[in-house]
């Protein structure tokens, strides 16, 4: 979509929504997040498979993929990591949007419970109607000694998969850990780093860090950017190799 000047006799300030009203409307939506899916698993699976596979050669896909992960990261990634990210990614031809799957039991059976459309201008990604994936963390821990990173959001997840990190992804900043014991076992005797992007994420991750502190070797809350909202996917834009990113994260 191109940038054009707004209409002459149009006053956008009349149509602004104040913070309290916005919160009320958004909390109406979030209160549904504990519900179970209204849509059957096989229906979701079929819908997700009907989307196109991603392709950096296709210019329509490329514009959208550039907003998710940089091409150097995709090319340099370990083939197994790349296959996983590739299998979780699709392109919706009708809307011209990137789509990613949301999975339950990511350590074992990898069951698809929903999928999300990318949205422009850094807005929250749109979940498929009738599904509630926001209580399901994505856990991918495949080594015994590496640092575990705790991140927020599906875009960060795809980037960290390509980087080959051990990650726990929490779906959104309002997440509450409903099954603490399972996750505490995952982090036993490991170094845990929480990557924090803003105040909202800090409020969410601080109690989680407190729970992890009982079993983990060390827990660190780390802010990536000095000013403004910077998450992992914004942070890696300044580098050009995976090794540089890993060095930056460990420093």
């Amino acid at each position, binding site marked *: 979509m191109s*940038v*054009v000047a707004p209409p002459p006799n*149009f006053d956008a300030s009349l149509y602004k*929504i104040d913070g309290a009203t916005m919160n009320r409307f*958004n909390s109406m939506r979030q209160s549904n997040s504990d519900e179970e899916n209204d849509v059957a698993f096989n229906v979701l699976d079929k819908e997700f498979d009907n989307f196109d596979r991603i392709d950096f050669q296709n210019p329509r896909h490329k514009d959208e993929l550039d907003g998710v992960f940089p091409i150097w990261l995709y090319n340099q990634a370990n083939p197994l990591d790349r296959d996983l990210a590739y299998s979780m990614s699709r392109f919706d031809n009708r809307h011209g949007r990137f789509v990613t799957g949301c999975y339950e039991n990511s350590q074992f059976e990898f069951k698809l419970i929903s999928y999300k459309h990318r*949205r422009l201008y850094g807005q929250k990604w749109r979940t498929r109607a009738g599904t509630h994936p926001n209580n399901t963390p994505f856990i991918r821990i495949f080594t015994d000694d590496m640092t575990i990173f705790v991140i927020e959001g599906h875009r960060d997840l795809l980037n960290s998969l390509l980087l080959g990190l051990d990650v726990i992804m929490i779906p959104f900043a309002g997440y509450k850990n409903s099954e603490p014991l399972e996750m505490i076992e995952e982090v036993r005797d490991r170094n845990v780093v929480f990557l924090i992007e803003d105040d909202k994420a800090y409020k969410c991750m601080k109690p989680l860090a407190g729970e992890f502190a009982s079993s983990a070797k060390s827990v660190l809350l780390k802010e990536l950017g000095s000013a403004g909202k910077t998450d992992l996917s914004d942070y890696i834009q300044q580098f050009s190799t995976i090794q540089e990113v890993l060095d930056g994260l460990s420093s």
Partner: protein
Amino acid sequence: MFSDFKMIRLKIQERTSSKEGLRDVLHSLDVDVTESDYFKVRDERSPSCKLNVDGSCYDYGTGTYYQDAVSLLFDGYKAFNSLPATMQWLCELLNIQQEAKQ
């Protein structure tokens, strides 16, 4: 201006025939939309117009139905004085190629 109004309007409807499409148009107008797809068409306290999945919207406050982006901008927001001006602005925004009148 345009050679065929009907074709141009169909093209605009095609591009904005989803919630995402109309949301992008509203975003470029700098209009706030809540996560539950409500936004304001009038000067009111709580937003009462809701986006539908097919890119149309319904104002529950006044009972007005806007079938596409053109009717929302022209009838709802009254942002332009004429329909051709509305459609021309939307064509520029959505990168729709216009054919010159012969």
